[in-house]
């Protein structure tokens, strides 16, 4: 195993340190899978091509005005300065390798032979066309766990189709049940399909690794991004069969609770969310809104009553919050035990006392970016906390470390690969979606 490329080389608290993941995945679903593993100490080797690097690095020559670069300045090497990429590859090793020629394939064969897991989310069949089907990969590493995560899985009439995380919100049914009342479906602000698939894959591949220790057997794990996303709305699939009724777009209202909505507060685009989940909570909210008279009003006593009078109640609450600070509203409601939260944006999150106290966001100093805040590990473990060990790699940053120290290649062989364009640090092209 190579030495960690930073001063943080200790292995304490890194529960997955004995697993090596060869990561050919791009964009978000695959990288989120391997991010969760890298946060916990797995040795993740992120492999890219100089001609088709991970499109999250952005274009070689970006159009003006893209603000995912530090201070909106792409700099001389924009592919190393993009926040999209840099938030998903911390604690991973970054190498480049072209698989089109024989010398590159020889190196790749060696990498596969020493890896526990290979993860890819190419269009279905792409790796097989290069001569690397699961059967062929098993020749190189008999107990390999091969995680293949194309949009629609390996098999079925749509297997060659393509889709991104945003599309999986639509094809999974998530978008169908999301939207303002009486209006059409609405996409989320992110692409839920991606992290959902990545997290699914991470859990199952760990279960497969654990099983491999007992049986010595590897496994081909077929991940359909679409099926991973449908799994998160499963209750609605059953509900439809039970009732014959499609889920309704309810805006910010709930099928179970009332009142339950977002309410505008003082300031520009400031909102608070309030959810009354029991009769007791309603009585306490009613006391705050309108004193004992409102609390005693029988027409709002049960959840069915409050459902029926939601328009009235929402207007009442909205009038009360309109001139108030969102955070202060929540402090008051929480003191009365009423579920509520401000709607928080980027500035709120990074300034927030709670997230600061928990270290939710961590500062990482990237050599081409400087110190910036990033989301840290997704959970906290008391004995083996994991941590961000180093910033996301620049393109090909760890070529020499991996090829020399891990594979034991002589330096002149590495130089020959560089001269032949098989490995390197300067992109020869980019394909950006």
């Amino acid at each position, binding site marked *: 195993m190579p030495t960690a490329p930073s001063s943080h080389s200790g292995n304490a608290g890194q*529960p997955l340190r004995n697993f090596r993941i060869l990561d050919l995945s791009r964009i978000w679903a695959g990288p*989120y899978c391997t991010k969760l593993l890298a946060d*916990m100490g797995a040795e993740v080797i992120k492999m890219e091509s100089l001609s088709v690097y991970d499109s999250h690095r952005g274009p070689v020559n970006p159009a003006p005005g893209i*603000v*995912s670069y530090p201070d909106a300045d792409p700099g001389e090497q924009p592919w190393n300065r993009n926040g*999209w990429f840099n*938030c998903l590859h911390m604690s991973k090793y970054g190498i480049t390798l072209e698989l089109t020629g024989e010398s590159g394939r020889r190196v790749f064969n060696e990498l596969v032979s020493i890896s526990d897991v290979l993860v890819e989310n190419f269009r279905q069949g792409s790796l097989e066309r290069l001569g690397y089907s699961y059967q062929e990969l098993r020749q190189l590493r008999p107990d390999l766990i091969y995680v293949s995560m194309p949009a629609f*899985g390996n098999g*079925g009439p*749509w297997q060659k189709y393509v889709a991104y995380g945003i599309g999986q919100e*639509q094809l*999974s*049914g*998530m978008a*169908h049940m*999301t939207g303002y009342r009486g209006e059409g479906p*609405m996409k989320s*602000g992110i692409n*839920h399909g991606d992290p959902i698939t990545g997290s699914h894959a991470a*859990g199952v591949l760990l*279960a497969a690794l654990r099983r491999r220790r007992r049986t010595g057997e590897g*496994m081909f794990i*077929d*991940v359909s991004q679409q099926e991973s996303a449908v799994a998160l*709305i499963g*209750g*609605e699939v*059953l*509900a*439809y069969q*039970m009732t*014959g*009724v499609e889920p309704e*777009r*309810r805006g*910010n209202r709930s*099928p*179970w609770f009332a009142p*339950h909505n*977002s309410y505008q507060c003082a300031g520009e685009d400031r909102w608070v*969310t309030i959810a009354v989940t029991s009769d007791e909570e309603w009585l306490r909210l009613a006391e705050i809104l309108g004193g004992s008279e409102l609390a005693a009003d029988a027409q709002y006593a049960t*959840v*069915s009553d409050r459902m029926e009078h939601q328009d009235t109640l929402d207007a009442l609450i909205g009038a009360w919050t309109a001139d108030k600070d969102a955070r202060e509203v929540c402090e008051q409601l*929480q003191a009365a035990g009423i*579920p509520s*939260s401000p*709607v928080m944006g*980027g*500035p709120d999150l990074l300034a927030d006392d*709670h997230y600061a106290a928990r270290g*939710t966001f961590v500062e990482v100093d990237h050599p081409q970016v400087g110190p910036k805040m990033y*989301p840290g590990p*997704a*959970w*906290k473990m*008391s*004995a*083996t906390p994991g941590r961000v060990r180093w910033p996301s790699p620049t393109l090909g940053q760890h070529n020499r470390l991996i090829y020399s120290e891990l594979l034991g290649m002589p330096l002149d062989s590495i130089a020959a690969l560089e001269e032949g364009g098989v490995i390197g640090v300067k992109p020869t092209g980019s394909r*950006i*979606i």
Partner: protein
Amino acid sequence: MTISGPNSGEPMGLLDGVRAVDLTHYFSGPYCTKLLATLGAEVIKVERPGVGDPMRRFGPFASALIPETGGDQGRRLTHEEREENGAWFLYLNTSKKSLTLDLKSADGKQVLRELLGSSQILVENFAPGVLDKLGLGYDELRAVNPSLVMISITNYGQTGPRRDWKAAEINLYAAGGLMNITGEPEEEPLKEGAPLSQLGAGQNAFVATMVGLIHAEDSGEGQHIDVSIAEYATNILENAMMQYSYSGQEYTRVGNRGYGRAAWGIYPCRDGYVGIIAGPDQRWPEVANIMEREELADPRFASRYGRLVHADEVDALMLPWLLDHDKVDVFKAGQEHGLAFTYVATMEDLLEMEQLTARDYFVEIDHPVTGPLQYPGRPISPHSRSDAWVYRRAPLLGEHTDQILEDRLGYSTDQISRLRDQGVI
């Protein structure tokens, strides 16, 4: 794939031999333990006697006569319908066993300790401090089983100034930054229809459980894992967070257009809605061909930036063709030209979707109250392991109480009767 009824032989899954005690309810914890159970772990869901997971009483229910709110309108629900008929409960608790136990009683605590002595995993999603007050906090439980992996899923985590804040899904989606960026810029921020913060956090908790289990088996050392639902939301903000962190510019709501993009979202069509994805740039000319509008090949629209500047014009040129075609045809027209078009699937669409049916995605599971239903099945399929996933219907309240006490803990019939008489089980 193995499908079996609750009383048939125990199939072997990836996690065969792993035992997990499940003190969870509602969405987040049950989804974590559902994944453990369908991978073959024995998951013992501990529920309050006579009450159970409150999710059992959340509709929709099978009978249209029953009001969604589960209240007193219409006819009264029979006991069985009330407890065993909620769609989300049935989905989130497949393949588990149900044991009723009063955790406030000394005997109930003793049963729990005995179960934990022979279990590797405990998953719970009570508010922080609830188990500590019962004398069942991590420090006490570690004394029972030093290699126990205990996973606590809460709104805001076990520490921090907002640790005790109450929250429903909408509050967590808001506090995690996802709601602020969803919806139209001039309207209110919008939550998802499905409880994606809780379910996503539950799924991440499943990953964390696997990490903890691997470490415990390596070292004999157990630990306490702290999963916050709001933190899960912050963890998946991706560029919505990074853009602000990097350049100080806040990510805003853009409705159904992709952020900084055009022709990158949901559009109406003849029989519903479709997803139009205009990239990558080199594929854009195909859109003009598909939609039979030469104007769309205008060089002004050739780049992502150009389309963004002329977004309204691009929309106006696409809409006539879209409104004249059905969603599946739009989807396939794009896909056949290498474009990642999609359509907005309804529940009916999903159940009939040729890709899902060809892959045997749905699993029919029978249930005494609902009858047979098609359940979304394995999210992941290990091809070389046909029996990797285990499907059984969700348990009735307390269905496995006697079996677990007898078979797992060696209780006698008399002891079980005594516990039942005292209301412990």
